[in-house]
């Protein structure tokens, strides 16, 4: 019994002590400027802690709905993005159409596989016979020539890349309109070599190289690159190093060039009329 009374007495003393301290601190809060600021700051931090906790708990229960809203928003944004992409594709095709003659048609395709680091490089495109792709069609972008289709399946096509030592086609130095063959130099994916430029033709650094349009594969005036340097070879012709516009390592989308008159031209070749 005495022990119980002692316990109650001690409890009373402890409560009285706490009450007196609280009164004192309240007095400090009311009259001390620094103390008021510090106490207010402390109280705000404690309140913020509880508010944040409450907010986190409420947000947790709202997560499912927010997730659903985000999915819907994402879906809407994807729709908008697709519309813009298709518009951009149309614009790009339009720019190529402006360059090309009416005989050429462009089929947009995505690169499924690309190998820019070998001596003989190839690309695989996601368009094949079903999309109207056939062997010997050119492959280009707005910034250059990519290669030639060498094999076609129903849904895919294999392209012999321009980055291939066996690949060569005709190009023009735009400033002088001189035609010469251009091919990959085999050294880097960023450069090519234009050979057999007549000695009397002035070759300047920075001159633009474009497709000639003298074949049924590539339309004319597609930019390829600029001349970086030139040298005389064996005293009979010049050779120019060309810096390519297209970055073969970053390329994702291309256009397959379809010549509407290809069959007619082939027929002429086969009949020996143009031989």
């Amino acid at each position: 019994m005495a022990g119980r009374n002692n316990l109650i007495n001690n409890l009373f003393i402890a409560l009285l002590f706490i009450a007196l301290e609280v009164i004192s601190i309240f007095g400090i809060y009311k009259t001390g400027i620094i103390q008021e600021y510090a106490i207010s700051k402390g109280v705000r931090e404690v309140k913020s802690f509880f508010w944040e906790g409450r907010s986190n708990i409420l947000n947790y229960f709202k997560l499912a709905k927010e997730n659903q809203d985000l999915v819907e928003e994402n879906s809407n944004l994807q729709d908008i993005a697709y519309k813009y992409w298709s518009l951009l594709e149309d614009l790009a095709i339009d720019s190529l159409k402006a360059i090309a003659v009416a005989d050429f048609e462009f089929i947009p395709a995505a690169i499924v596989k690309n190998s820019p680091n070998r001596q003989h490089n190839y690309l695989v495109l996601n368009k094949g016979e079903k999309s109207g792709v056939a062997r010997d069609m050119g492959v280009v972008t707005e910034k250059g020539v990519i290669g030639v289709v060498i094999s076609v399946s129903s849904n895919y096509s294999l392209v012999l890349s321009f980055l291939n030592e066996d690949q060569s086609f005709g190009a023009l130095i735009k400033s002088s309109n001189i035609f010469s063959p251009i091919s990959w130099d085999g050294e880097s994916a960023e450069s090519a070599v234009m050979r057999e430029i007549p000695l009397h033709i002035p070759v300047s650094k920075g001159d633009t190289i474009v497709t000639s349009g003298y074949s049924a594969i590539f339309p004319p005036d597609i930019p390829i690159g600029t001349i970086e340097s030139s040298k005389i070879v064996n005293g009979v012709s010049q050779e120019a190093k060309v810096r390519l516009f297209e970055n073969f390592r970053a390329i994702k989308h291309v256009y397959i060039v379809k010549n509407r008159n290809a069959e007619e031209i082939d027929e002429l070749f086969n009949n020996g009329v143009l031989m």
Partner: protein
Amino acid sequence: MTPGTRRAIIVLIIIQALLNDILSFSFYFQPAFYIILIISLPKRLNPAYVLLISFFTGLIFDIISGAVWGIHSAAATAAAMFTLMIRPKMFDSNRNHHVKTEDETTYRQQIFKAKFFLQILTIVSIFFIVFILLDNFGFNHFPFDLYRFALCVSANSLVIWLMILLFNSRSKHGNTTK
């Protein structure tokens, strides 16, 4: 301590409170001699009264001296609470021993004095821990606070100890002359 001595202490405390602003010894030194009242309260006094007396002494000191209201009362109440907690533990060990010789009496008196000084030092320390914490509300100037604490505790403990010795010798002298 006699009631007369306590009255003298209360008068001294009021004078100190009134002169607190004028007697500015140093930024680091805060006189708090009224702790002597808490220490000299009768041991058999109800603990609740000890707390209340300490609280109101501190509050009156705050009001008279123009300090932030509550700062001395909080520190004094904490010091009183600590006094209530340590006093029985520090002095209970002396009660159960019977004094046999004069040498032993002298020795026990010395021990008692040492313990009493230790008690004053501890109570004053508790007072200034609470006081400095409430005054600054943080540890931004910890080295200065430590210096302030050391100076306040040592100076106040010494003054209080000397005052108690003075009052005790005067009361003994008064008793012998009567």
